[in-house]
């Protein structure tokens, strides 16, 4: 997929060429993949065949990381029952951003550079600075990030949907994360999956624009969750009802 910003990246805006993964992670991936494959082949049974396949995949991703930095690509679209201009205004208004972006803080400086900080308590903090590279009100906003830890560039489009359905709001972006396949899988398991984040953010914009609120069940009564439920609560970072603070401001209020 190529990002169709109708603008080629200007000189200096291509992703940097440095490898995505640390040497150590690549080495570990290759070693683990090779070990699994050999063990799987030696076993000479169906389970072994499965292991060998998994190992081969690890070797493949490790080698791919050596050859070329990993670049993720995301394309997501939603149709919102509002006019393109309304959606554009809504998206352009920083007051509305905090609703869609969970755990993200942002800041705009004098030169119209936007700093994003993904902050999830003590677990991880990611900084990203980005610049609007091109914009046509009511049609598109294209951006590119600084060559920092996570590099990304993409475009947000506002297109009139056929048949009076409103606006097709779409986001398409490429990113380069300093991670190998293992860290990517772990990050996505912890909820840091760029595609999921993009999709849920657009969904929230749609929900808020169409209905005035974002549906939720956080804080509703629930019975004893049991052992498995307690484990899931940790994984999904749920909070039991009793601990929830009363909400200061309801979405859409």
């Amino acid at each position, binding site marked *: 997929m190529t990002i169709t910003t109708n603008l080629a990246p200007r000189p200096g805006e291509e992703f940097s060429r440095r490898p995505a993964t640390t040497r150590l992670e690549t080495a570990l991936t290759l070693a683990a993949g090779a070990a699994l494959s050999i063990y799987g082949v030696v076993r000479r049974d169906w389970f072994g065949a499965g292991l060998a396949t998994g190992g081969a995949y690890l070797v493949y991703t490790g080698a791919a990381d050596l050859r070329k930095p990993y670049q993720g690509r995301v394309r997501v679209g939603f149709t919102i029952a509002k006019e393109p201009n309304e959606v554009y205004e809504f998206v352009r208004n920083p007051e509305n951003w905090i609703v869609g972006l969970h755990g993200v803080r942002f800041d705009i400086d004098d030169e119209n550079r936007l700093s994003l900080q993904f902050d999830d308590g003590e677990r991880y903090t990611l900084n990203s600075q980005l610049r609007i590279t091109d914009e046509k009100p009511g049609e598109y906003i294209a951006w590119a990030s600084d060559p920092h830890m996570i590099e990304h560039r993409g475009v947000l489009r506002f297109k009139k949907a056929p048949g009076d359905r409103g606006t097709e709001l779409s986001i398409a972006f490429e990113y380069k994360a300093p991670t190998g396949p293992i860290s990517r899988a772990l990050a996505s398991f912890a909820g840091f999956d760029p595609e999921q984040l993009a999709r849920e953010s657009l969904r929230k914009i749609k929900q808020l624009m169409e209905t005035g609120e974002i549906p939720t*069940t*956080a804080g509703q009564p629930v019975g004893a969750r049991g052992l498995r439920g307690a484990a899931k609560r940790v994984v999904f970072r749920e909070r039991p009802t009793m601990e929830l603070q009363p909400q200061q401001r309801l979405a859409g209020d």
Partner: protein
Amino acid sequence: MKALCWQGKNKLEVEQVNDPEILNPRDGIVRITKTAICGSDLHLYDGYIPSMEPGDILGHEFMGEVVETGSAVTRIKKGDRVVVPFTIACGHCYFCKHNLWSACDNTNPNAWMAEKLYGYSGSALFGYSHMMGGYAGGQAQFARVPFIDVGALKVDRGLSDEQVLFLSDIFPTGYMAAENCDIKPGDVVAIWGCGPVGQFTIRSAFLLGAERVIAIDRFHERLKMARLAGADVIDYADVDDVIEELKWMTGGRGPDACIDAVGLEAHGTGIAAAYDYTKQRMKLAFDRPIVLRQAIQACRKGGVVSLPGVYGGVLDKVPFGAAFGKGLIFKMGQTHMHNYMDRLLKHIQQGDIDPSFVITHRFGLDEAPQAYRIFRDKQEECIKVVLDPWQEIAAA
């Protein structure tokens, strides 16, 4: 408050949980006066629906009195007596505006789960797994109702709870199943399953002008209730072949419309049924589409197969060649509740139908686990169970 919580397959417990609170400006809180157990709740009880978690509060057929409303609620007022539809709709998206309420875009907080399995997510439902929204259900003393202005149907006090309760699901579901058949004068409609939805489908088919309804089941109390509504009946355990029987009863044409009011846990007899049971036990399949196969085979050329019965996964050995060869029309899906509640309330007010006919058992909420078992195992000629969440307190 007290609530019935799912704790695993065949395991339900009445637990003390927090009272629900307003979480969004369009929410309302309802003090539940009556709630019912639905046939589709049995799919949860039997563990066939994915993404249930221990502690989830069950129940999607309920009514009561509004005790609190959010800041953006305008139509519904505190003190209103309301019946709550089991699907939650926002009222503003493309689907709500086109009367496809159960396809609402904006009410499922876990839409991504349903998208993974089905491609797109439908509206959220009360008490019906996290994939369908994870909203706490109504087999409890109170419930939080999102978008209460859009969904809740106000009812005056002239009608009893039991007369209007089933506007929350099974009456509209049966009615839509019949309406989907596009019934014309002279039409013969065959209905598999004479459970609560089947009973309402039979009566709705007559309301919509069917000439003749043939009801298929094997439990004599259910067949008796169908006969009382004016249907001819087939006890499938008594006949060699349901399809041949239907052909014979319709002068060789086959029914003009076939309605599957059974869904994924069909019983059936013979090799086909044994095959489906085995596959389901081995976790190779979610569904036992015995009725769907029969309905496709039995339906007349160009007829309608309408499915109010719930299916969950990928179906096996469905005779699609027959469906294509005969040019059948398929209509299915969760009920677009909001289209029917007003209309059906009028039928009740005019005395065309008294939905309380279907109730055979009444329990307090504390006895709900036992009530599920009686209903599932069809003990004591059970057809429909209504629960009173306050019964014990009232007696004390």
